[in-house]
């Protein structure tokens, strides 16, 4: 993400929200603080979700009732608000195993994920004067 978005689009006027969720035995607040330090950019705000509240809310909004969304990336267009439930993303992708609840059409890993993230930034920022790619 650091290279796919933040470094590739150093002047893109995005708001980046990272939720560090506790899913694995090794996940905790200290680990979240360490990982957040790896994404050092003024456009990024970090949150910590020990109770999986955000993960469950995101999953529910993507037809995954009762599931938890993680390893997931979502873009929201300007104007939409998060009121009681999350708004629908304009694009999204995930790294969950294809047989999971998440739509396999949005499954991306490795370079495919990087390219999809970059494509989404370009599409969402097109004509919005927020796109100034480094390359």
């Amino acid at each position: 993400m650091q290279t796919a978005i933040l470094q590739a689009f150093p002047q893109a006027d995005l708001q980046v929200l990272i939720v560090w969720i506790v899913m694995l035995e090794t996940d905790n607040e200290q680990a979240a603080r360490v990982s957040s330090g790896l994404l050092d950019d003024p456009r990024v705000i970090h949150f910590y979700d020990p109770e999986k509240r955000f993960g469950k809310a995101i999953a529910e909004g993507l037809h995954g009732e009762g599931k938890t969304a993680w390893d997931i990336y979502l873009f929201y267009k300007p104007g939409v608000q998060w009121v009681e439930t999350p708004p629908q993303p304009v694009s999204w992708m995930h790294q969950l195993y294809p047989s999971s609840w998440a739509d396999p059409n949005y499954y991306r890993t490795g370079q495919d994920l990087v390219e999809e993230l970059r494509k989404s930034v370009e599409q969402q920022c097109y004509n919005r004067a927020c796109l100034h790619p480094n390359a």
Partner: protein
Amino acid sequence: MISLAGSPHAFQQSFNEASEKVRFLAVLSPT
């Protein structure tokens, strides 16, 4: 900086305050 303890209000506030922008949200395991 991390806003701690599953604070939906703080998250919603940050999300909505930036509503004039494209917002990118990632939910990740820290390890």
